[in-house]
């Protein structure tokens, strides 16, 4: 027999023929296990991501096998690699085109902080132009680390309110970046 593990059902009150739980948890469970990532790969971290997507590490195990190359259908923006200042507005545009709910993961030192490229032409961390949910350290990080980052995103997705975009904190965060 195969040892396929399926996602655990949320805490519920069960009886004959029914199962009672909150809608938040069901939707959170569904969302967390069907994240469509948009890879924004600009350098070597992107190569590690390709390994992560490949058969050995297999990101599909986490429900993320469907990469979306259109930002409009993507849930998770994965920024992997050095973002030059000239690329900043492009990245921001891609983020703006994504529909809510959306999450962002900064993979590697360059996307998180500019990394070794402390120079006039490189953006010193993507959180200068868009809000970031999870930072993955490493130069470049190993596929295990990227998978761990995706799992931290899953934790966020599972426990997040369905009405995140209406929360004053979230609105304030986006306003801090000048995003409506």
């Amino acid at each position, binding site marked *: 027999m195969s040892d396929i593990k399926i996602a655990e059902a949320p805490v519920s009150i069960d009886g004959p023929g029914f199962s009672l739980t909150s809608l938040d948890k069901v939707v959170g469970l569904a969302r967390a296990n069907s994240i469509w990532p948009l890879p924004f790969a600009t350098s070597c971290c992107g190569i590690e991501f390709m390994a992560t997507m490949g058969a050995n590490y297999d990101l599909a195990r986490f429900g993320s096998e469907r990469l979306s190359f259109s930002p409009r259908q993507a849930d998770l923006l994965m920024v992997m690699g050095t973002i030059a*200042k*000239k690329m900043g507005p492009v990245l921001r545009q891609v983020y703006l085109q994504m529909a809510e709910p959306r999450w962002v993961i900064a993979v590697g030192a360059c996307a998180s*902080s*500019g990394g070794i490229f*402390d*120079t*006039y*032409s*490189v953006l*010193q961390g993507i959180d200068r132009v868009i809000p970031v949910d999870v930072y993955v350290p490493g130069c470049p990080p190993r596929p295990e680390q990227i998978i761990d980052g995706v799992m931290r995103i899953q934790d966020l997705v599972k426990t997040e309110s369905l009405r995140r975009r209406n929360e004053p904190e979230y609105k304030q965060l986006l306003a801090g970046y000048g995003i409506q």
Partner: protein
Amino acid sequence: MATLTNEYVQSRIASQFGDKITEQVESYGMLTVTVHHEAYFDLIKWLKEDAEINCMFLTDLTAAHYPDRKEEELNVVVHLHNLPANFRIRVKTYIASAHPHLPSLTPLYKGANWMERESFDFFGVKFTGHPKLKTILNVDDMDYHPMLKQYPMEDQTREDKDNKYFGR
């Protein structure tokens, strides 16, 4: 096709331009000619149009900044190539950073267009007669020439790095 030698080209340049040439040296087998900036365009035009020397290909055009050389802080380097004879030559000229003007090579070589824009972008060399002298690699609103040595390489907007650990 007769082979061109550095000695021969050197003597031709000396007889043609004489006192406008400040230095002729050979480094790693390649002739390097330093020319006064007033004769810069004429020399390159002559190197291109002379029937024998015939340097029809512009390999490279770039700049360098030497802040210690007073009144000639900016250096422009041009590499030319005669393809049939496989003869290469390097032309250097120095200009003052207070007055960084040089004639554009775009009337001679179409390929000079982007290389001159790059030299303008990073070093602020103003090529007179260039069709579109604006930034090419840096962000459009870049308001300084970042490769000039008075500007630090590091991004100045970072607060999370302690200067003493980064040698500054």
